[in-house]
């Protein structure tokens, strides 16, 4: 089909929108509320174009192309209207860009600049002054900065099927709100942070703990250990101005050392530990008639989701703690014992691609190390400590690097400290959807068959599609597995289990699109193309690792010999496994939420 865009004749496919046609033709139409694969509200009026013969300007994000259409994206009328529409949004938007979390990375700011808006012509029309919603442990909402584009609502309801927020009120009083304006911390929010990732302004951000971490780094006598999740090494480079998906493990380690962390460790070590425990748990469930399918439990948004929405199926969830929590528990017991450091002096900071990890770290049951030491050191209730003290997002780490004047791209590559920095390729792929499954299969195969598999690349579970399934041949026994990313897809698999039609034995669920590499704490923007690049880097790191199976990690072997004794053993039970709680929400509001 032929259309004319800005007087250029272009051949376009049928059934696409004007915006898609323009972008394919290399013509940029600005947009704001539109977000590919997420939202198509057509509410902001920024993407308007002039079409010959049409009475009014058309919103290019929702209007399909037709044969012979003559489109002008930069006619005076289209440009002027676009500008006015943004100016109107600015009328109710605060003017505190300089001190905003999203300064320099704000779509509204960028639009204002690119559209050449250089004055504020319209006065504020909204009468209310909204207060920040700081009730959540993971996220902060500032409705004052909200421009009502609806992207957060779309991602929460259509991608995650959580529906924690929606438009409420009408006219000037329209705002994004939780049920009864109770606040994110008091409703069934999973803390996934996808809303923060898609917000074009600073209206939703993570609850930062940069100041607390910085203070601890200065405190004498504290041993501040940092652990980095697998997806951070393919994200942090972007936030420091490098190309999408840059693999910067070595520079990240160097940067963390320069920030002053006592030891730079790797969550990947704990990921290997998770795999050994989880593969053994799976086999035990298969052999002893336990609850199947077993579902992974590394993703804290997912864990909270099932606790809220499918509490009757909690038995399917692996009892393994997530790698972040295993790391904390091991660092404050095993590592403390090994080095003779008082566990009360150890601070564990994690860097995560995730906002839900902040909540996870504050779950009251995540105090395995404290309970371990309680009798041994006669600890009082006041001395109680969490296994993980603070969880920073990738974005927060970038902020710390910037503030410390670290020239990230010029850093040398350095290696993690030992012993909790030793890891395998199996651990790296935890950062992508399908990775935990593949890592578990690499170990489970050998545990189950006693043989080495022909290949350890389980390609069937790779990729970024929403749900993937595979039949894994364990030397004659077929293991049916499924991998889901996004909570909506996870819900589909749970519905299947509910109906009794689930054919699977083992399921991996990741909360965010693409898994952790697309997590709510990752650099902004994060979209499909960027997720693909990050995934490629993750598999690249895996391919280049000398050891690619978790159970072959020498430090993992050592921790079992010296400390844990055996997988699923007594010590593992106390330190590496957890339990879940039903979080029904009949009242719509969870009182006393937030441990």
């Amino acid at each position, binding site marked *: 089909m032929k259309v004319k865009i800005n007087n250029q004749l272009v051949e376009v496919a049928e059934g696409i929108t004007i915006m898609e046609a323009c972008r394919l033709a290399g013509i940029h139409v600005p947009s704001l509320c539109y977000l590919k694969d997420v939202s198509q509200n057509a509410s902001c009026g920024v993407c308007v174009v002039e079409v010959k013969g049409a009475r009014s300007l058309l919103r290019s994000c929702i209007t399909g192309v037709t044969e012979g259409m003559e489109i002008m994206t930069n006619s005076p009328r289209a440009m002027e209207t676009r500008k006015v529409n943004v100016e109107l949004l600015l009328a109710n938007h605060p003017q505190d860009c300089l001190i905003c979390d999203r300064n320099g990375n704000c779509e509204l700011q960028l639009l204002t600049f690119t559209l050449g808006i250089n004055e504020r012509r319209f006065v504020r029309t909204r*009468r209310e002054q909204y207060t920040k919603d700081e009730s959540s442990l993971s996220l902060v909402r500032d409705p004052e900065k909200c421009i009502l584009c609806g992207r957060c609502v779309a991602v929460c309801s259509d991608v995650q099927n959580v*529906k924690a927020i*929606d438009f409420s009120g009408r006219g000037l009083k329209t705002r994004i709100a939780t049920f009864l304006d109770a606040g994110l911390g008091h*409703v069934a929010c999973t803390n996934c942070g996808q809303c923060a990732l898609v917000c074009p302004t600073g209206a939703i951000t993570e609850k930062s703990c940069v100041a607390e971490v910085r203070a601890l780094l200065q405190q004498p006598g504290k041993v501040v250990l940092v652990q980095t999740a697998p997806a951070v090494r393919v994200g942090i480079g972007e936030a420091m101005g490098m190309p999408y998906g840059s693999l910067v493990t070595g520079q990240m380690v160097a940067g963390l050392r320069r920030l002053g962390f006592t030891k730079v460790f790797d969550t990947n070590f704990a990921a290997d530990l998770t795999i050994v425990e989880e593969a053994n748990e799976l086999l035990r469930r298969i052999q002893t008639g336990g609850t199947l399918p077993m579902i992974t439990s590394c993703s804290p948004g997912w864990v909270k989701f099932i606790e809220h929405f499918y509490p009757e199926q909690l038995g399917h969830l692996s009892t393994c703690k997530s790698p972040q929590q295993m790391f904390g528990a091991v660092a404050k017991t095993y590592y403390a014992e090994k080095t003779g450091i008082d566990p009360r002096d150890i601070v564990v900071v994690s860097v995560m691609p995730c906002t839900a990890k902040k909540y996870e770290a504050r779950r009251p049951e995540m105090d395995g190390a404290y309970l371990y030491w309680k009798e041994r050191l006669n600890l009082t209730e006041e001395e109680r400590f969490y296994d993980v003290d603070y969880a920073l997002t990738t974005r927060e780490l970038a902020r710390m690097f910037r503030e410390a004047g670290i020239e990230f791209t010029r850093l040398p590559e350095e290696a993690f400290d030992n012993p909790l920095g030793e890891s395998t390729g199996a651990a790296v792929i935890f950062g992508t959807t399908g990775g935990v499954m593949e890592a578990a299969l690499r170990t489970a195969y050998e545990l189950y068959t006693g043989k080495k598999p022909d290949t350890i690349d389980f390609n069937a579970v790779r990729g970024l599609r929403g749900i993937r399934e595979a039949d894994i041949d364990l030397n004659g026994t077929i293991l049916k597995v499924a991998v889901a990313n996004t909570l909506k897809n996870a819900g589909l698999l749970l519905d299947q289990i509910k109906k009794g039609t689930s054919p699977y034995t083992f399921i991996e669920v990741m909360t965010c699109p693409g898994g952790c590499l697309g997590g709510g704490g990752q650099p902004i923007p994060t979209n499909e193309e960027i997720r693909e690049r990050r995934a490629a880097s993750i598999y690249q790191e895996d391919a280049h690792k000398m050891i690619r199976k978790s159970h072959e990690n020498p430090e993992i072997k050592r921790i079992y010999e010296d400390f844990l004794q055996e997988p699923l053993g007594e010590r593992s039970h106390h330190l590496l496994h957890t339990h879940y709680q039903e979080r029904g929400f009949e009242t*719509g509001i969870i009182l006393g939420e937030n441990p």
Partner: protein
Amino acid sequence: METRTKDTVSGNIIDEIIARHRGKPGMLLTTLEEVQEQNQFKYLPGETLAEIAGKLKIPYTQVYSVATFYSYFNLKPQGKHAIVVCRGTACHTKGSKALLDDIAANLGIHRDDNDTDSSYTTPDNLFTIRTVACFGQCAQSPVVEVDGVIHSNVNSRKLQTMLHRVRGEETKKEISYATV
């Protein structure tokens, strides 16, 4: 008067209302409307919204979204008598702003034009003042609705009489209660 928030519509009544509308288009709107009607203070407390969401299996946020969108739904307890002043253009030019101020003064309500509250209720819970954008009765402007009846060509004196009458009825009731 904290006790009044406990006056929620019972689960059985909500069940009965839902049973009549389940599966029909607009079932949420009709349910909200009828449940509010059943409430002693003509409003939808949070517990009730949650109950309706749970029973209709509609997301809580959606129920809240709908209940806050339509000015018909009250999220705060309403007075026994509702006075709705039309603030449409026609009524405005005929002085509805002055009428609104009059009523507020008469009932001892402090109203601020910059205040965005949608309704005001007297402490004795007898009267609630609300405004509406247009009743569609512009030819009779200014119009004021009292307890569901629209009064046309209202002026201050007419208004006084109406309020007086409503008050008088209330006092009579009180006396008759007292003598029983």
